[in-house]
């Protein structure tokens, strides 16, 4: 019970310390303004799931102990896709955001295979295809560090309790001041609420359950479509059943790329600007595992 902990002038001075040279993923924990001497924040519990694609990528970067500024894209992409498969195996809905990131990774990977474009005058070299992603990861990592600190402070703060709110004190319930809020405000509140609920001018939205997305399922679906359109071939545009969410488009495109890469589908375009047609590669009818028959 030192007098230090309750003196607010000291509390104010206990501002977070800065330490600019911390290693990736390791953040010094600044003291909470409420921190009593000797009370360390409790360790954080580890959640098994990830908070999105950036969280997953940072995890893979740390787990592989690779330099965030020199990410081995091929390797990390491979592990990322494996993790996505794992999510599906756990019967978790793989959110569209993971799929979008997969597309980004694959794009970066392919750009890194290409020779770099000629550098503009006066510049040493072209931009690293990974630069934008690295910037995002770094920014996100900053906030993760802040979250760790805040989590500790939350824990400390929860060790102290306050008096029930003013209105809980029976002795001191005074008549509420007249005109504190207007009936108009009340009316607005309900209107806002009903508008949010979609009953005002929009029809009540039908809720469709989020479907489980799987690259493999999409590949099967697309392979079937293309096979069915044989021998004319399927128009590229026909792959996408619009309107559909952005990740749906990305997923279909990824599935198509994968089918092309595996040599199961060929894309043909007779003339520039003409519709791209997709035809099955039926050289080896035996190769129909994975449901492409």
């Amino acid at each position, binding site marked *: 019970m030192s007098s230090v902990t309750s003196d607010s002038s000291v509390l104010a001075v206990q501002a977070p310390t800065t330490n600019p040279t911390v290693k990736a993923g390791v953040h010094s924990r600044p003291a909470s303004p409420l921190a009593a001497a000797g009370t360390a924040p409790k360790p954080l519990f580890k959640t098994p799931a990830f908070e999105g694609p950036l969280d997953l990528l940072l995890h893979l970067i740390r787990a592989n102990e690779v330099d965030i500024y020199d990410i081995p894209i091929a390797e990390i992409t491979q592990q990322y896709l494996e993790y996505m498969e794992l999510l599906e195996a756990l019967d978790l809905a793989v959110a569209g955001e993971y799929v979008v990131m997969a597309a980004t990774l694959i794009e970066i990977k392919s750009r890194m295979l290409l020779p770099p474009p000629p550098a503009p005058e006066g510049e040493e070299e072209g931009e690293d295809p990974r630069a934008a992603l690295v910037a995002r990861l770094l920014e996100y990592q900053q906030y993760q560090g802040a979250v760790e600190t805040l989590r500790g402070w939350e824990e400390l703060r929860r060790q102290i309790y306050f008096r029930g709110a003013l209105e809980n004190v029976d002795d*001191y319930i005074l008549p509420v001041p007249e005109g504190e809020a207007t009936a108009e405000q009340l009316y607005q*509140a309900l209107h806002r609420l009903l508008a949010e609920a979609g*009953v005002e001018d929009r029809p009540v939205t039908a809720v469709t359950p989020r479907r489980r997305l799987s690259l493999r399922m999409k590949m099967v679906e697309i392979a079937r479509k293309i096979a069915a359109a044989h021998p004319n071939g399927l128009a590229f545009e026909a792959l996408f059943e619009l309107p559909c969410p952005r990740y749906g488009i990305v997923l279909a495109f990824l599935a198509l790329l994968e089918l092309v890469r595996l040599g199961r589908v060929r894309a043909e375009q007779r003339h520039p600007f003409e519709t791209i047609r997709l035809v099955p590669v039926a050289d080896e009818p035996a190769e129909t595992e994975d449901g492409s028959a």
Partner: protein
Amino acid sequence: MSGPAGKGIEAALECLLFVAGEPVPLAALARALALDEIATEAALRSLQIGLTERGSGLQLLRIAGGWQLATRPEHAEAVGRLLTRGSSKLSRAAMETLAIIAYRQPITAPEIEAVRGVSVGGVLKTLLERRLIAEAGRKAAVGRPTLYVTTPDFLHYFGLSDLSQLPSLEMDAPAPPPVPAEVIADGRPPTNADRN
């Protein structure tokens, strides 16, 4: 009585009485302190004397059903000046809940929750404590849920003379059907992550 342990118990008692905001039965205090009732009562009396001796603004009262911390009457004037400032406005959650009750009374908590899409237990407690709503019997339905109505204080708060002065709801669409909670959230089924 006032050794280190004794002081520690008194300090803990002070905390308990402070957070409770209502009379706390001796048994509940003893349970929270993991002490027997005799030791707890001794500590209460010691705390009571201590508060008086050091001229605290607070006093420890034994009233119906338990023990309660309260302000001393000589500071009523200052307290009155603070409270009349009307510092505590209704939260948005309270306002929305109140709006639903005002327009659809008598109404049960599950019915309010069907519109708001979140649980309203805490908000109802606040509104009851501020006497803006009151209980009005129970609905003849499964679980016999409590019905809520607005009070005269509600009218006073909003400067209305009676309920007929509430602005009429001009809906473009027919009266609000019970909306599934999923629609009120942003169209996605609620997940644990969203709920905290």
